[in-house]
């Protein structure tokens, strides 16, 4: 699971209001190189919840993202920033582990890189 996918996901249990971001529990992570696509990075940037990405990257052992992006138009011209953003968003993978709802503590397992967001009957 890439961290862009993580950035989209929030806990889907009925009644949960603060289900984002899901905390990451890592058993196994990996890195996989993908092509650098500058237009994509620039267009997706405004949709990404930055703090969630920073925390998620950190839980996978990557600490190079700036805590905050104050001046995004300048940052998006910086190739150093874009490379880090690219790496965190698209090249880090959670392979085995779990996503944990910040409100309820419910664990959503991740196996072979696929998060399982299926709910139990009493959660829908």
């Amino acid at each position: 699971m890439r961290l862009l996918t993580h950035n989209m996901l929030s806990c889907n249990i009925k009644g949960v209001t603060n289900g984002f971001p899901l905390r990451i529990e890592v058993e196994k992570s990996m890195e996989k190189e993908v092509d650098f696509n500058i237009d994509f990075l620039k267009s997706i940037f405004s949709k990404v919840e930055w703090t969630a990405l920073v925390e998620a990257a950190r839980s996978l052992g990557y600490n190079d993202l700036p805590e905050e992006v104050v001046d995004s138009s300048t940052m998006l011209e910086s190739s150093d920033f874009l490379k880090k953003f690219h790496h965190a968003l698209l090249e880090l993978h959670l392979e085995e582990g779990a996503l944990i709802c910040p409100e309820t503590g419910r664990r959503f397992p991740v196996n072979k890189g696929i998060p399982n967001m299926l709910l139990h009957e009493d959660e829908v």
Partner: protein
Amino acid sequence: MKLKQLEGLLGNLEQFSCPKIELEQYPTSAHIASRMLFSAEKTFGDVTGKVVADFGCGCGTLGIAAALLDADYIVGVDIDAQSLETASVNAEDMEVELNLMQCDINNLNWRGQFIDTAIMNPPFGTRKKGADMNFLSVALKVATRAVYSLHKTSTRDHVKKMALRDCDATSAEVLCELRFDVPQLYKFHKKKEVDIAVDLWRFVPPKDQERVVKTFSPHQ
């Protein structure tokens, strides 16, 4: 990529090894899948450079077609773990990136308006009434640009009404009518059901809809 090339590549994909009847698991043929994605891109520019969701992705045929047409990021969602594993192997074989997740479409809860285009061949609702309309209503909430979907031609009026009136779609258009070979996977299929008329639709989601995080469908 040429249409024939795309069709040829999709023809190599692994499909459901033991299809689950209650989930209406049958693949979109390479013929139909290639044309669906090809016209989405060539006529409307809805695929290349876009973020695409494949709802009920099964073994990943539609999502992989989007990847082969250079979509930027693709998320495939299915309720069934086994199909997702096949999709994952298929993507690896084709050397494309699919982001997969196991989820019931009816309980999807995504934030952030990431998805431009949704593509799907939903269950027709023959096993679970309303399944097709649930998929459509969720897709119209998640996608910001377009939704491509296949529905039985016999339900055309209903689909249109549902999309425009209940889901506030900006437009709902049948792009073409197809013959869909639902292979005789299941014994209960009556003969006439083997080859059914299916519409390929393009819907445009509501423009200014407030994209609430929850996307529970109204027909549960």
